[in-house]
């Protein structure tokens, strides 16, 4: 993997939100470290799965990557070039996003044709005919009939709307697509159709995905590598097979134990996590997971473990693996 071309590189990225109190005189009483010093790379042509519970910063991270929010600190490099909210136009064409909720991400007052053509209108000087020529084959690829162009979003089901959202994201021919929980609002039988479409589109257009989800089985199905986040930090990053066969971080283990398996015969020896996500406002020093971790040590309350490569390509941030030989 290391010799593959790096498409996106994130260096020490941080996003802090101030917490204000008082109605007239805003006083900053704390900061929420939504994304706290994260570094990783996304290689060309791969799917990087990003998993975590609500409040872990996965949506903030994806919004920063696409340039919707400014970073507090750190760098995002796309093909070696720095990008962000003030990134160049060419970056906007090459990176697109597919949203979670197909009901609120399509403008109800636009026809399907206007929705899908909108990126072309902004970024190209195509004539009406050229635009239509770009849209039609794409519509066919996402299995939406051509007579849908004159219709409005409410005339479509959730699955079809998500297909339209995919067509809109792909119309400029991007290289990098961020999918923010794209199937969590869909029904079970439709979810499989859309997941298959994602894989098909990736093959066809050579796309690179960042696939954000809270559903471990969906992430496992679609990803090549998986990154686990907890309270603004990356706690584990490994290839899919490595992560599932050799799970190291106690949080990743707990996350996997918590998934209900669709098999009534399955033996369940689960160690459930006690407690809940601590408040992200001014979290305690040290490891963010210390309050729920079954293996907590004194050092965890003092120092945040850094993300270390314990096996080739397998990164984990936990004091249990301070030395390379550390085993659980």
């Amino acid at each position: 993997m290391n010799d593959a071309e790096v498409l996106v590189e994130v260096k020490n990225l941080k996003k802090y939100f101030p917490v204000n109190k008082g109605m007239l005189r805003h006083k900053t009483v704390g900061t929420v470290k939504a994304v706290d010093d994260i570094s990783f790379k996304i290689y060309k042509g791969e799917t990087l799965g990003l998993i975590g519970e609500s409040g872990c910063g996965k949506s903030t991270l994806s919004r920063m990557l696409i340039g919707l929010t400014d970073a507090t600190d750190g760098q995002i490099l796309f093909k070696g070039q720095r990008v962000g909210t003030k990134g160049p136009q060419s970056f906007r064409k090459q990176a697109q996003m597919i949203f979670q909720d197909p009901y609120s991400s399509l403008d109800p007052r636009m026809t399907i044709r206007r929705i899908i053509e909108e990126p072309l209108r902004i970024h190209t000087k195509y004539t009406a005919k050229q635009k239509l020529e770009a849209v039609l084959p794409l519509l066919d690829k996402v299995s939406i009939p051509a007579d849908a162009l004159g219709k409005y979003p409410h005339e479509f089901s959730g699955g079809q709307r998500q297909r339209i959202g995919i067509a809109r994201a792909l119309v400029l021919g991007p290289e990098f697509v961020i999918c923010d929980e794209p199937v969590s609002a869909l029904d079970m039988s439709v979810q499989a159709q859309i997941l298959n479409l994602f894989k098909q589109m990736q093959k066809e257009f050579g796309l690179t995905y960042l696939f954000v989800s809270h559903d471990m089985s969906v992430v496992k199905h679609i990803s090549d590598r998986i990154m686990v986040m907890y309270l603004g930090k990356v706690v584990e990053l490994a290839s899919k097979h490595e992560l599932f066969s050799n799970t190291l971080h106690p949080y990743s283990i707990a996350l996997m134990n918590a998934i209900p398996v669709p098999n009534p015969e399955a033996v369940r020896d689960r160690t459930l996590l006690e407690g809940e996500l601590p408040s992200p406002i001014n979290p305690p020093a040290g490891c963010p997971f210390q309050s729920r971790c079954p293996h907590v040590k004194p050092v965890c309350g003092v120092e945040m473990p850094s993300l270390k490569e314990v096996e080739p390509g397998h990164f984990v941030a936990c004091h249990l693996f301070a030395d390379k030989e550390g085993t659980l």
Partner: protein
Amino acid sequence: MEDVLTVNNLKTYYYSNNKKVPAVDGVSFRLYKGEVLGIVGESGCGKSTVARSILHLLDKSYTKIEDGEILFHGSDLLKLNAKELNRVKGKKISMIFQNPQAALNPVYTVGDQIAEVLQLHENMSKKEVKERVIELLRLVGIPAPETRLNDYPHQMSGGMQQRIMIAIALACNPEVVIADEPTTALDVTIQAQILKLMTRVKQQFQMGMILITHNMGVVAEMCDRMMVMYGGVVVEEGATADIFAAPSHPYTQGLLASIPSIEEDKEELFSIPGSVPRLTAPVTHCRFAGRCPHTFDKCEGSEPPLFDLGNGHKAKCWLLEDKNGESLQ
């Protein structure tokens, strides 16, 4: 086994723009004491409407229970008047809702909201009510219940709020608890905690539970028996282990095959083509016919009955006809 709740041929229709929508179109089942019955299906299949019909929680301006009976200890809940029904609601049959944030009242403390049920149904002094509230909070695993009962819902996390909902549902030791997607709004690690809590209280109080969900994992984990609903009818029912081992209706087969698996790798997922149809009454064909890979003439012509496959396992599909031949209805 003793059955606490029997639903016979329930039909609940929605009316919109003079169109009849058969949201629930002839559903029958029994709930036994101490068991968990899962109702699974996609959105629009009628699973929530079944639950709401039982407790009369539907908006009467556009819904009507057209037919059927809901027997609770032999008396038909549909024939009770409002006063009699209120004695059952919340006391003998209670409900846990999907979204605790929306179901809890933001301007009352959680202690007050639990106490409300007790004040309505039980003849208790103020002191007894408070003691019972604290006992309930402890039961559902809220730390420091003596102080937390003065909290407002917004001071609690989603998981804690759902625990409060469970405490409200359990307040009067109900015989039946209906849980409508109780963990859908929660994170996986919190979901696991809530499911464990529900299993524990169910065993402790030996009540019957109806668990409505779209998550096959939750069903496999929690339920003794399950029903799969599609387009307002039950297409398959039986013991959970039997259905997972040998799904007999093409829809159930498709659903189970379309779930991405943690254990094995598949390049492509099986997917059911099309999407959930919108129905208008009356229906004279198999509701799954348009999406089924095995459709033949008979499916378009008439609706199959539930065929008995033994051991309480039934499925509504013409493919099962010549094996067993006999219909139940």
